[in-house]
């Protein structure tokens, strides 16, 4: 790049960059309108006392929705134990569900990558949970998991795995497990699909060479497959983590209002819509955005560190 710029001089560089800006302009404009404006507006609303109940226009209140101290009590989202519980719930949900999806996704992708009759059909079938809209699948699961006439309890009782029906969505100890199970069922195909694409990019000759060198299948997987699919897997994990951090619809249908499974998005919606406190809800949304940005930064850094370590050891 540097040598080229030197060779053709600054005129070329300027022309290229102004061309690039011109070509990028429509996209940047679309991004500003679609993502930047709502974000800026919700940050602005979080600094006001906007409410759905009042007919008066919103007033600027500074950071009061985030944290304020008056009459010996702390107020605001950051002082609300429910918010911190929602943050913990969401992080727990994200870590557990994304890890399980990563493990299962790689496993399924390896199976789908093997040659067997009817492979195309199985590949299509695996994608079905991903294709069903979340609201539909969540409602479907909520009936299947019903404690009295749900099919899940029926089957578990028949095979003797449980003695009494389990209250999957009502039991405070089980409800988060249930939400994770349904999410894993739904989004593992997405991870599997991305990993499968990466697997098919690996040239067969690599494995043939490994076999010639006497590497067993486990070694082949650990030293060849995994490093080679890691970039794709990492993309899948980042995507899934972003999705999981803002989880809403699944929980809204499966275990509405339950404190055990309330996510950050559920909290923000409850404040803004159910409680009419648009300003306060926007403050929660803004914090949700901050938590997401932070988490993704951590994941990206972790990913890069591990990637370079991998490269060094090779």
């Amino acid at each position: 790049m540097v040598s080229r710029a030197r060779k053709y001089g600054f005129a070329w560089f300027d022309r290229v960059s102004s061309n690039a800006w011109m070509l990028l302009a429509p996209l940047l404009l679309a991004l500003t309108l679609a993502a930047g404006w709502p974000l800026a507006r919700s940050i602005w609303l979080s600094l006001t006392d906007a409410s759905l109940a009042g007919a008066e226009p919103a007033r600027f209140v500074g950071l009061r929705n985030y944290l304020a101290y008056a009459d010996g009590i702390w107020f605001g989202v950051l002082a609300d134990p429910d918010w911190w519980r929602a943050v913990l719930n969401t992080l727990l949900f994200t870590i557990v569900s994304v890890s399980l999806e990563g493990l299962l996704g790689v496993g399924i992708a390896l199976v789908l990558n093997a040659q067997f009759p009817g492979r195309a059909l199985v590949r299509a079938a695996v994608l079905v949970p991903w294709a069903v809209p979340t609201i539909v699948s969540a409602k479907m699961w909520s009936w299947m998991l019903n404690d009295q006439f749900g099919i899940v309890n029926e089957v578990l009782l028949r095979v003797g795995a449980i003695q009494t029906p389990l209250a999957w969505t009502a039991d405070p100890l089980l409800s988060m497990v249930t939400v994770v199970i349904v999410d894993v069922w739904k989004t593992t195909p997405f991870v599997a699909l991305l990993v499968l694409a990466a697997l098919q990019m690996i040239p067969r000759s690599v494995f043939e060479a490994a076999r010639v060198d006497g590497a067993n299948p486990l070694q082949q997987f650990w030293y060849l497959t995994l490093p080679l699919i890691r970039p794709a897997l990492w993309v899948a994990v980042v995507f899934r983590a972003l999705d999981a951090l803002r989880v809403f619809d699944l929980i809204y249908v499966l275990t509405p209002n339950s404190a055990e499974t309330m996510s950050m998005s559920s909290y923000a919606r409850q404040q803004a819509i159910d409680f009419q406190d648009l300003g306060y809800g926007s403050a929660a949304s803004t914090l949700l955005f901050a938590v997401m940005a932070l988490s993704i930064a951590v994941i990206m850094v972790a990913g890069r560190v591990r990637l370079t370590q991998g490269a060094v050891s090779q």
Partner: protein
Amino acid sequence: MRRARCWLAAVLLALSTNLAAAGETITIACSALGRELELCREGAQAWAQATGNQVRLVPVPNSASERLALFQQMLAAQATDIDVFQLDVVWSGILAAHLVDLTAFAGDALREHLPATLAGAKARGRLVALPWYADVGVLYYRKDLLEKYNAPVPQTWRELADTARRIQAAERASDARLWGLVFQGRAYEGLTCNALEWIASRGGGNIVAVDGKPQADDAAARSALREAATWINDISPPGVLNYAEEEARALFQSGHAVFMRNWPYAWALANAQDSPVRGRVGIAALPAGDDTGQHVGTLGGGQLSVSRYSPRASTAASLVVYLTSAAEQKRRALTGGYNPTIARLYTDPEVLAANPFFAMLQPLIEHAVARPSGSVGTRYNQVSAKIWSAVHRALTHQQSADAALQELQRDLERLRRVGRW
């Protein structure tokens, strides 16, 4: 005399609607739950024909909280698309700022409504809605099972638990899935209604006093919540903690529950052609807390309001007056089984012939416990969420009843200072 007054009302109504009749189109958002949309359409069209206006119906989501969210967003945006809104009885305070005061339009007809239903339509001294139908929590029981075990309809909650346990134990031999009692135990508005009944049946208050002061932690509430927490996994299935009205009805109507707390709508469904328990169901007032307690249900129901942003507000108000009139409420009682809010319809022979249990409902509605929506202004949903989560914590045994109520009291006091009600 009564007939004369009726005629007078009819003439006045005709006059008032004729004045407004300029062929306007009124848009009404009514609930589409069960037969509600059909009944709403018939009533609104009768009004349209009589007055030379047109009506347009907008079906709204079935879930009450989603409906409220939709209405709030429309009203906050000052949208003029919808003129008449069907509101739940606890929404008056939340939406009051966006609604027209209907006192001038309602006139004398107001005096006919049951005071309890009228109280729910008022917010900050303004009449922001007209009562349309009433609802009250009642007890359903399996007549056949009570007869088989020679048990009377329970008069106290303790008696109910004993009867339920006895029948459940004996019947488990033939139906392993039989449970004693189902109610609305999910963490949502329905649980607030249920909890208020348990507390009021012991002579307790309704969690927030009329002057707005929180009073969650009293002796009645403590004993009510302690007792309810013992039902779970004993006479109530553990899943009841995620049941709303329809989940409870599904269990009761399929014959797997002895008792059910629900609203009167379940009566017609439990006795429908395809119902497995058809003809084997009884309905009664909810049990009292103890021998000195009272039989009490929580008040619910629907009311109609006119948006302040409607450019056709007076025509819209005439539709609301028509739909909430005695004649229309009678039609809805006869064809849909909806409980009127007009006192004299409870002694109307035709209404009673179609709905024999209405006679029992009138005193229940009159003495129903109201949710504290009137005393907390726009903050009702927040208060109710605090109530249902505290009750849910106690029912799931994550906290003792006493600890849950103490925390609720602290939460409400804090909320009151933030929310300034």
